[in-house]
Each structure stands twice: as C-alpha cells, then as structure tokens.
C-alpha cells in the first residue's frame, strides 16, 4: 500500500495507529481475563499471541513511518489526542489541562519495538512453559495487561499518562510475581515489589508537583520548552518556620546556615533527584533494588519479560525522555553515575556467591542496569539507551535459557528451590545443545566478547564515562544584601563535579566488567560443563507405578541417589525464541558499532530526540583518538574474567572456590546473604514505620480516645453524682431551697431601682425627666449638669423639666433612696440636635456629640456618657437601628 497510503490513513497529528498498538493487548487481556476459563488453553494462547503479534506489526509499521519522516534535525513525532483527563492548577492558580494523549517518536518507537517484539517471543515461550499450570488463562491475561501498561508507559505523551503506565506495570508485576499465590513467599515478594515501586512513585509524584510549579507543563514538549526556568534556587533548609527560637544557642548555632537565605538548591536538582528516586524504584537501583531478586519467585517468563527486558528499563527510558531536565543539574548527573556504579559493583559481588540460576541472573540484571545509569549519569543518553536494547536481547535469552534448563530439571526434581540450584546441574551441554549454544552466545555478549552486542554497548559506556563532560548551567539568582547585617551574599553557583570523576568511574566500571565476565562464566561452566549432578541417569528409565512421578521426589529427599531419565531438550516453542534472541544478542551490536565499523545507526536515530540534552554534553579534548586505547582494557577485562572462570571451574574442578569458602567463611556467608541489606532495611526503615504504627495505635487508644471520650464521660458521671446528693427526696428540703431563693430575690427588691424615662419635646427644647416610683422612694436631682447633686436632702420630686438650647448637651443625674436607706444613682445625657433629622446633620450630630462629650466628661464614667449621648443622638434620628434602648425615647420628631 506504500508509505503515503499509510500516512493518508494515519495522519501524524491524529495517529490512530497508536490505538491499535495499545488496544490489541488490552483486548487480549480482557478476553483472556474474563472468558479465559471457558475458552480453553489453545484459544487463550492464540488470543494472547495474536494480540501481542498484532501490536508488534503495528509498531513496526509505526517505526517505518517514523523512519520516513525523521530527518537530521527535526525529530518525527506522531500524536494521538484522546480526551481531556483533568486540569491542574499551576503557579498562581491558572489551569493546566492534562489530556489522555499518546505520541510516538524515535525513542518510544524503538522501545515499543523491543517491548512488543521480545514480548511476543516470551508469549510464545510461555505457551509451552506454563502448559500444565491451571492458572493458564489468568497468566496470559496478566501478561497481556502488562504489555498494555508498558506500552502506555512508553507511548504516553505527558508525565501523568506515563504514570498510569508506570503504576499499571507495577501492579502487573505485583500480580505476576505473586502468580502462584498459594505460596506465602511469592505473595510477600509481590507485595514487596509493589511497595518498593510505590516508594519510587512517590518520587515521581513530587517531581510532577515541582514541574507543575516551576515549568507549568507536564507534557514532553512543554517540559523541554520550559526546562530552563527550573534553574531557580529553592530553599530546602531550614523548612517551614525555620529553626525554633526557643532552642538553646549551642544547638541553634550549627543548625542555622550562615547564609540567611538558607541552604539552597536549584529546582532542577530537586526534580532530578525526585525523578531518579522514581527510576531507582522501578529499575532496581541501589536504595530500592531489594525487590528484584525476590521477584524471581514469579514464573521464569515473567522474570524474562518484566525483570530483564522491559519493566526494569522503564527507569532508563524516563531518564532519556527527561534528559533536558537532568542535564540542567550536574549534581544529579553525578549522583546517577555514582549510584549506577555502586549498584553495578554491589550486585556483581553478590552474584559471585549465589547458587540459584535465576538469582545470579537477577543480580546480573541489577548490575547491568547500574551500567545503563552510568551511561545516563555521564551524559551519554543514547549509549545508555542502546545498552538497554542490547541488554534486553541477551538478558531475555539468558533467562529463557535458564527457564529451559529448569523445565528440563522438572522431569525429576519438582521442589522449586532445588530445581533451580546450580549444584544439581552440570554437563547439560550434551543433553540440551540448542539451549547450550544460545546460552553461550548470550554469556559471551554480556561478558563483552569483542564484536558482540554487549561489547559495543558496554564498552561504549566506559568510553563515554572517561571522555564526556557536562556544561555547568547558569543559575538565575542575583546578589542579595542582608538589610540587618548589611552583608552582601553572592549569587548561587551550580555545583560542578570533580575533574577526575570520569576516570574513576571508568576504572571501577572496568573492575565490574571483570566481575561480570567471571560470574557469568561461573554460571555457564557449572551448568553446562562437567558431569550431571541432578540424578543418576538410567537409560530407558520409566516412571514408577506411582503414576505422577512428581511426588515420589519428595519422599526420599534424603541423600540416597535418585534415578531418572536423561534430561531432554525443550520443545520447539522454547527453542525458537532462544535462537532468535541468541542471534540478536550477537549481531545487535552492529547498530552502534563505533569501534571497528564506525556505524552510528542508533546514535543518529535517537539524536534528534535527545538534541536539547546532548547540546550541553561535551568531550574532553582528544577523545576521538582515545577510542582504541580505551577499548583494549575492556577486551582485557573480558579475557581475565572468562579465563579465570575457566581456570577455577573447569581446570581445577571448583577446588579454589571451595578452598576460598573454607578460608574466609564469614565473607562467603555475608556475600551469600546479599550483604544483609534486606535485614538492614527491616531493622531501620520498616522497623521505624512499624514502631510509628504501634505508637499511633497506642496514642489513638490511650490519649485521643481516652481524653475525648473517657475523660468527658467521667466528668459527666462525676458531676452527676455530685448533683444527685442534692435530691434528698424530702419535700421541706426543697421548700427550704425555694425560700432561700425567695430571700435572694427579696434582696434584689430591697435595693432601689432608679429607672429614668425622658420625654423630649424637640422644638420647645423642654426635656422632662421622670424617675420611676417605688416603695418609700425619695429622690435628689442634679439638673444643671455640673456633675454635683444640687441639694443634700432627699425630697419627693420625681420629675424634672430641663430646658435645652439648640445642639446643647446636658448630663442630668438623680439619686434614689428607698425605705431602708439604700441608694443608687442614675445619669442620663440629654442632647438636642442642630436641626431635626437632616442627613448631613447626621455626621454633624455625631461630630458635635463627640466634642461635647469630650468637654463635658470629667468624671470617671465619661465613656459611658459618650455612648449614651451618641445613642441619644442615634435614637433621635429617623431610621436609627433597632437598638432595644433601655430608655425608650418617645416622641421622635
């Protein structure tokens, strides 16, 4: 149909081919998952293979269309916009729309090919490997779901969609690791994998939040465009309100940084560290690698697909995708390289002492991932990614080979641990020729035999580690003058790694290469060479009467010898993928064979996507000429490793290893027990959270619940008992209380009630003030407002008329004495406004009231008078507020 026919069907900006790539595995997962039981094994495997195969075809088509469009400078990119997922408020609360959109470009196209291609081979392999398992349909459902999630991860157009794939892949690995969930250990391993990945995802979430704040976009192009405003400094210490003031000085001294702006770091470094935490969680790097070895509890195809080829490389993919961000912070790049290096060495050292094939391969995966991250850390994103591809081929081939060997061992030994133990194998090369050859090819590739894919990718990384340098970015921060101490603090400079970091990485990585070659060939020689140690082979052996020969193996797991048939080569579905992968393991190097063939196919293919990042990655001078001299040590490392292994395990039949173990037993045990890293985590982090949990439950029960619930109930009960004693039940006691109350009330009546009412007649200005009558009341007045009472003796005059001029204020007082000689004084402020009720008069009235009050007020109750006067003013004006004034002012004009 031709390329332009394809373009007409799938236009670049509405690239529905992506729906086909994603839809097929999802459909397969759904069909197998829901109807799998009823469809039967053949239909299930057919569905799964068609789904992944179809997806592989579609990604090939997409790949070719990409090649059509890709030019030197402009990266080809096909996008499919789904629907608006949600919108996020960024800095300053403006809305950033996030949509479900998928895009494919050079990087994700290549990765999609790997995922679907290797995935297809592994699906084919599993149809045979999982044949007798009763959870057959469930396995293929999960596998297809995994392929779908991985594709979502790769093809996602923005970080949240990638995150869907990211956690989807984590969930699928949780389900697949715990596939045989009837074993407690498998379920625990699954949970461990999920939780560790989740810790990584925490990093990703924080990174997304930071990006939203600083860059204001989450899709790839938005991030790349706004990457350089990540160069703003962020204060990371002291947090929140800073070091508390009440701390004594000798503690506060060291804690408070001398730069008043606090310890500051560029946002790029923060984002870089957060992203790298996510990648470390997913790609099993140093802090969070513990879950990968335990993940071997899952079926071997799972280990091959997920824990070798695809999922674990997601971290590297993310780093390449976000290269523009990583490059902005040399500190992050240096940490990535160092962590990668440390992981590589640690894992390689552990692999030395492991006897389980899958454990050795697991640790070798961790180690190889370390190398990829070294590549990323030194700025060689393309080379690191190329190592991902070659690693996918030979590591998948190794795992499938191991699976084939284990499958053969199952003929007689069914106990999971013993069927994977190298000590029960040996001499398999004469029984399983194809597996042997492909396994050898992959071992040579991973060890770095010149001209094999491993050589070209790993040694290229070493070369780039030695020669590449990263430009230090310019942090956007100015001088700052501290007003209090008038000290000017310099602008912040980005951290630059030491000069010889590259050289140190190169040499240690070389040591790692030697170790890799050694343990890989240790594995190869112990499994395929020497004589078979599994069981004594009896020609023409036939299964005993017990029929299912499986369980007889358990009776005599004691040491007397077990006899059984000759281990036979696995079926076609297993050997075909092995051969394909073996061939690829050898010849894939051609894509990027700088050393001898100067072919830069892969670099040029990925270059446009990584253009912005690689622009700030330079080379030390004379790097071109150093290519050959730097390769020789690599070849030497391969020779030493393989030779050493050959000498120890073939010529000396393994005595040196045995003698080493006797000589230094404690070292062997520590290395065998994985440097006891799991136990370290158990004690420190997990233990801490555990005790926090116990404390929380204790606090919840004895502090929160106790205080809120029990203390209040106790208080209510206690007050209840106190009040209960009051109820004696005898009537006259109640009577006595009543009478006492009456007495108190009586007292109130004894004191005289001086209640004053004012009748104001505004136009005549006559204000008549009457005091209310009472039993035996007598009154004394102060009419002239001078503050003193006019006469000393009491009379019966209960009413007083006061004549006020315009806007005049007067304070009238009355003292009341009752029959028992008790007295009380009452004052009333009288005010006659300028004109009745005019609105501007309002303000004027209030104003005058204020001045008048100030002048009139002498006695200590001045404030009270002001309120009274104002109230008086207020009362007089129409529309005054409904204030239930105790002194009803009648006759308002």
């Amino acid at each position, binding site marked *: 149909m031709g390329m332009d026919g394809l373009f007409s069907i799938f236009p670049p900006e509405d690239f529905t081919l992506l729906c086909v790539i994603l839809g097929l595995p999802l459909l397969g997962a759904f069909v197998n998952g829901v109807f799998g039981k009823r469809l039967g094994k053949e239909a299930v495997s057919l569905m799964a293979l068609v789904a992944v195969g179809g997806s592989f075809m579609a990604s090939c088509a997409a790949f070719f269309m990409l090649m059509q469009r890709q030019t030197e400078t402009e990266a080809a990119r096909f996008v499919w916009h789904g629907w608006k997922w949600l919108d996020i*408020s960024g800095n300053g609360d403006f809305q950033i729309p996030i949509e479900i959109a998928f895009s494919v470009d050079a990087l994700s196209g290549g990765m999609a090919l790997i995922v679907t291609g290797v995935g297809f081979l592994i699906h084919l392999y599993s149809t045979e490997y999982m044949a007798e398992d009763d959870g057959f349909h469930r396995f293929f459902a999960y596998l297809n779901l995994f392929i779908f999630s991985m594709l979502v991860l790769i093809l996602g157009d923005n970080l949240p969609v990638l995150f869907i794939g990211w956690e989807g892949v984590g969930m699928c690995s949780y389900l697949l690791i715990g596939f045989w969930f009837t074993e407690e250990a498998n379920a625990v391993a699954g949970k461990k994998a999920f939780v560790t990945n989740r810790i990584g995802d925490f990093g990703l979430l924080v990174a997304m939040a930071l990006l939203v*704040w600083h860059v204001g976009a989450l899709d790839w192009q938005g991030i790349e465009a706004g990457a350089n405003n990540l160069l703003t400094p962020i204060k990371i210490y002291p947090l929140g309100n800073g070091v508390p003031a009440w701390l004594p000085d000798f503690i506060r001294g060291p804690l408070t940084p001398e730069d008043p702006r606090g310890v500051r770091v560029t946002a790029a470094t923060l984002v870089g560290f957060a992203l790298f935490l996510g990648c470390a969680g997913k790609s099993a790097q140093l802090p969070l690698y513990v879950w990968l070895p335990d993940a071997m509890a899952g079926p071997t195809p799972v280990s091959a697909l997920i824990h070798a080829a695809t999922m674990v490389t997601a971290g590297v993919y993310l780093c390449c995708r976000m290269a523009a961000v990583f490059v902005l912070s040399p500190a992050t790049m240096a940490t990535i390289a160092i962590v990668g290096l440390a992981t590589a060495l640690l894992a390689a050292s552990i692999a030395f002492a492991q006897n389980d094939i899958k454990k050795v391969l697991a640790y070798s995966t961790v180690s190889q991932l370390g190398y990829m991250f070294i590549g990323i850390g030194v700025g060689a994103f393309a080379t690191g990614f190329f190592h991902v591809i070659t690693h996918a081929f030979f590591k998948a081939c190794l795992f499938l080979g191991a699976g084939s060997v284990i499958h053969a061992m199952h003929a007689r030994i069914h106990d999971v641990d013993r069927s994977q133990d190298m000590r029960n194998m040996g001499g398999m090369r004469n029984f399983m020729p194809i597996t042997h050859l492909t396994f050898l090819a992959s071992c040579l590739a991973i060890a770095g035999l010149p001209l094999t894919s491993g050589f070209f990718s790993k040694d290229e990384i070493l070369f780039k580690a030695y020669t590449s340098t990263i430009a230090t970015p310019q942090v956007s921060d100015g001088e700052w003058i501290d007003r209090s101490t008038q000290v000017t603090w310099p602008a912040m400079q980005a951290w630059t790694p030491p000069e010889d970091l590259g050289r140190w990485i190169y040499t240690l990585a070389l040591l790692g290469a030697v170790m890799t070659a050694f343990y890989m060939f240790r594995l190869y020689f112990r499994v395929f060479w020497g004589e078979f140690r599994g069981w004594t082979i009896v020609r023409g052996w036939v299964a005993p009467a017990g029929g299912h020969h499986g369980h007889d193996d358990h009776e005599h797991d004691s040491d007397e010898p077990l006899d059984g048939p000759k281990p036979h080569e696995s079926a076609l579905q297993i050997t075909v993928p092995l051969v394909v992968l073996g061939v690829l393991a050898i010849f894939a190097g051609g894509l990027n064979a700088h050393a001898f063939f100067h072919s830069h196919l892969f670099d040029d293919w990925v270059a446009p996507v990584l253009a912005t990042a690689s622009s700030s990655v330079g080379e030390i001078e004379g790097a071109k000429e150093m290519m050959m001299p730097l390769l020789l040590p690599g070849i030497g490392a391969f020779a030493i490793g393989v030779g050493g292994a050959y000498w120890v395990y073939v010529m000396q039949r393994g005595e040196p290893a045995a003698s080493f173990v006797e000589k230094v037993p404690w070292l062997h045990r520590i290395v065998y027990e994985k440097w006891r890293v799991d136990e370290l985590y158990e004690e420190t982090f997990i233990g801490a959270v555990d005790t926090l949990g116990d404390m929380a439950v204790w606090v919840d029960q004895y502090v929160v619940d106790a205080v809120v619930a029990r203390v209040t109930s106790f208080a209510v009960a206690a007050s209840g008992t106190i009040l209960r004693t009051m109820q004696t039940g005898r009537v006259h006691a109640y009577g006595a209380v009543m009478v006492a109350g009456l007495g108190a009330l009586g007292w109130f009546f004894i004191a005289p009630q001086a209640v004053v009412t004012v009748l104001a007649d505004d136009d005549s200005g006559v204000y008549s003030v009457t005091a209310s009558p009472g039993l035996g009341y007598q009154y004394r007045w102060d009419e002239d407002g001078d503050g003193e009472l006019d006469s000393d003796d009491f009379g019966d005059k209960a009413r007083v008329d006061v004549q006020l001029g315009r806007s005049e204020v007067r304070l009238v007082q009355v003292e009341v004495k009752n029959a028992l000689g008790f007295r009380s004084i009452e004052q009333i402020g009288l005010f006659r406004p300028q004109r009745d009720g005019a609105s501007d008069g309002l303000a004027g009235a209030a104003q005058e009231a204020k001045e008048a009050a100030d002048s009139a007020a002498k006695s200590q109750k001045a404030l009270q008078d002001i309120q009274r006067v104002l*109230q008086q003013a207020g009362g007089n004006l129409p*529309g005054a507020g409904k204030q239930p004034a105790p002194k009803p002012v009648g006759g308002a004009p």
Partner: protein
Amino acid sequence: MTGFSGGIIEALPYLFAFFVGAMIPRRQGWAERVGIGVVGVLAVAFVMGLWPEAADAEATQAVTRADEWPQLLNVIVFLPIVGAVAILFAPRQNPKLLRAMTMGILAADFLISLGLLRANMTTGWHFQYVTEWLPTFGIRYHVAIDGISLWMVLLSTVTTPIAALVSFGSIKKRTKDLCFAMLLLHGGMLGAFVSLDLFLFYVFWELMLIPMVILIGVWGGVEKIKAAYKFLLFTMAGSVLMLAAILYMVWAHRQAAGFVTFDYLAMSNLVLPRTAATLCFIAFAFAFVVKVPMWPLHTWLPDAHVQAPTGGSIILAAVLLKLGTYGYVRFCMGMLGGPAYDRAATLAGVAVGGGILYGALCAWKQTDVKRLVAYSSVAHMGFVMLGLFAATTSGIKGALLTMINHGIATGALFLLVGVIYDRRHTRLVSEFGGLAKVMPVYAAVFVIVTMASIGVPGTNGFVGEFMVIVGTFVSSALGRHGSIQAVLATFGVILAAVYMLSVVQKMFFGPITNKRNENLPDMNVRETLAVAPLVALIFVLGLFPSLVLDTMDSSVAHVIDKYNSGRDSHRGNTIDELRLLNPSPKGDDPTSYDHNYPVPPKSDDDESANAASRPLSTAVALGQGVSRGVAR
C-alpha cells in the same frame, strides 16, 4: 412539562393514600381494603383543603431558570421521607412487601435524581425553589444545588439503594424499622445537601442523625449501644455548637441589615467583627471536623463502623462523612472565609499529620478488617480536608472528587467485608487466609477495589489524590508550608499501599490456614449486583473524571473568591465591626449567586422592619457598632 405532570403531581397524594390505606388490614377481604383506602383519600383531601393553597402562592419566589423544573429537588428530598411514612402504614408481617416498597422508592428516587444531570451547571444556583416557611423568624424553605452539591446528591442516591440491597440480604429481623430508618436517613442526607437555609440545613442535619443511630444501635454488633451513643454524642456536641453560631449570626445580621433571616446568601454577605468571626468559624468547624472526622475527634468512626451492620456501614462511609467536608466547603469556606483562611496552614498540618499519616499508620496495625477500612477512611478524608485547606481550584476540585471516590471505594470495601462477615460472622484478619483459591471472583473484585482505594492511576482514587497533592503544592493559602505538606501527603500514598496490600495478602494469598474457609460459597447474585455499579464507576471516573470536574468549575470558583474576599474584607476591615459586605445585592438575575437573596418582609405592621429597611450608613453604624460592641 407542567400540564400533564402537574395533574399527576396533584393526584399523587390521593393515590398514595389509597394505596397505603388498602394495605393496612391484615388478612381481610376486599371490602375493608377499599373502605380504608377511601378513608385515606378523604383524610388527605381534608388535609389538602386545610393547607394554605392559593393564599401565599405568590409569596413563593419560585423564580428559577426556564428549563429547570423547580419542584425537582422537593420530589427528590421528600419522596424518601414520605416513603418512610408510608412504610409505617405497611403491614409488619410481610417483610417481602416492605423490602420491595423500599427498593422501589429508592430506585425511583435515583431515576428522578438523574434529571438533575439535564441542566448544565453554569454559574448560580440550579433547580432553586424558595417558599416562606416561618416568616416571623425569617426562615424560608430555600433549596438549590450547584456544582458541588449536585454530585453529593447523586452519590447518595447511588449508594443508598446499594446499601439497602445488601442489608436486606443480611438483616432478617425488624425489617419494617430497617426500611423506615433507611428511607428517613436517605431523605435527611439529601435534604442536608440541598438546603440553603441555615435553619433548614440544621433540621436535616439532625434528622439524618437519628436513623443512623437506630441503624447502629438496633442491628449492630456486640457493643452496638456504646458505639451508637458515642456516635450520637460526638455529632450532637458538634452540631449544638453550630446551632449557637447560627443563632449568633442571625442576630448579628439583624443588627446589621435590620431584618431577621436564616438564609445562607444573607449570612455569606455578612462581615462579622474579628473575634466574633473567629468564634463562629471555630463553632462551625468543630461541628464539621467531628463529622469528617479529623484527627482528635475521629475515635467514634472505628467504633461506629465495627458495630454498624453492613448496610449502615456503607451509608456511614459513603455519604455521612461527606456531609462534614461538604459542610466545611459550603459554610466554613463559603460563608466565613476570613478566619478559615488564617487557620488554613495549621489545619492543613493536622489534616496531613493527623489524618493521612496517622490514619494510615493506625490502619496498618488493626486486626479487624472493618476497623482497618475505617482508619483508611480517616486517611482519605485527611486528603479531602488537605485539598480544601489548600483552596486552589484543583485542590478543591480534587477534594470534591476524592469525596466521591472515597464514597465509591470505601462503600465497595465495606460491602465486600460484609460479604465474608455474612459467611463467617467474624471480621478478624487472622481468621482468613488463602481465600483467592476458594472465592476467585470475590478476590478479583476485592483487589480491584483495593487498587482504587490505594490510588493506582487509571482508577478514580489516583485522580483525586493527584489533584489534591498538586493543589496543595501550589497553594497560596498554605504559604511556604504548602510544599512540605504536599510531600508528606505523598508519603500517605505509600502507606496506603502498605496497609491495604498487607491485609489483601493476609486474607487472600498464601495457603488456606483455617479449615472453615475451605468451602465458602463465592459471591451470590445479590452481592455482585450491588458491587457491580461501584466497580464500573471506579473505572469510569478514573478515566473520564472531567465528566464530574467540569461541572464544578463555576461553583468552586465562587467558593474560592468568597474565601479570598472573606480574607481581604477581613484584613482590610480596620473598623472591626459588624456590617454587610455589599449592602443591597441584587437578587433578580437567575445566573448570579445572589439570586433569591432574602428580601426584608414587606408586612408593615412590623414597624422595626420598615423603619430600618434602608441600609445604614457607616456613621450611624459606627455608633451602633461601638456601643453594641460584640463579644469584646
């Protein structure tokens, strides 16, 4: 729409009365049934006659939008309540009929509530209906929904039928009272979500409390009485404080505006002096924090959940907790913006530390599954409150979405826990092991719901949490603490995975430890029917959250600007005294949020009303303020 349906609406009460009357006599012939039916009809006719029909019809300012049927909300809210009354008349000896009636009413209510989706949620209140209820006290029956309460109503109408379906399966004794309690609870909750009059809100707030206490107290577990008391006392303590605050605000509004009203619109237009505003905020916040529940006041939730029956537990988790958070959005943020803003940072700290992390840690250590899920609710609600305190658009929208997600996910979790409780009558995790082998479908559903509860992207849990975390990170209300609190909240995501997966692993994976688990039947039709819609919603909301989020835009924007304006007017308020934000908001344009703003009663005999109907100028108000200094 009005002609024909109006006729039906008219005839509805009579038909209902006839039907109820006919059902009353037991084992009697047709004659008595028809007789009593007619008596019922006559009784209703008599009551309708008495009802003040035409007289105050014009008093109802039922001015609403053209395309929206004003009575819709009344039907939705009062159908369950009337149904509950009808259930009382139905014969107690016929549980099957009772269950059928209840499910019928709940299903009808759900279908009607779908009508709410017809209107597109532009700015302003929708389906608004206002009539005078107690004019002397200025109390109006004012009901309306906006983007926020729409989804709460729908969440309630979805989960209650499911809870009813499940509880009918497991509860056999006292069916009549169960049906009554369920329907009354449903009506109370719906009323609380839609009422815009503080008094009406308080009535519904208390109304829904009683049936919940009955649900826990009658059909609960071993110490059901203690748990019911604890639940009642906690909520009552809170709501009584709220009542005090409501009364104070009404009094203050009367001082400032001259007329008495309980209406939400008037209250949110009121600016209180600083200390009074803070005290009111604390009172309201206390009532809602108890309900949410937030950290120090959450101890009633695990007890209530452990003792509540499955159906009660589902409703309690799915809808009752949401009232606390809905209340906070509507009243603490929408009405009392100022003080809420000042305390946002500290409260957010409590929400993160006490809610998310504390809840997760406690959940991890629980031995009883229901207690574990209860503590997980505390953690989820911690996320919701964090989103609200952040007060950014995506923070609040994320919080509202998390409320819906939590309702679905935790509702489903309680349903599933109910499934095994019905089979094994125990909730201890140690009693179960290796269930996946025995009950594969159940295990699959449980894992899916766990993924939703943890917040795996693709399910609805993630969307809410993601928006809350980012919303908190960029929040200006939280100042420089926002970023730290967001990072701590993200830790909560890890802990969630830890405790949920550890319980899944203990119950489902590993060998079958307990002999009695060997032949447990898998989920039956009723249970799958009940959980299916929830699982579907998990994925629909997970992938298409903008269905829900877009409708919230205008109301969230309104809440945020009310929240910020509360702050500014509060800060700028130097005179620190009582006044109206804007003296006379125009209430006639249906698209504005001040539509149907309470107008002072026009009756002239109340002299204080017309004397002070004109707003006060600041000078005189100054006088009132100083002399009447409130709560110095």
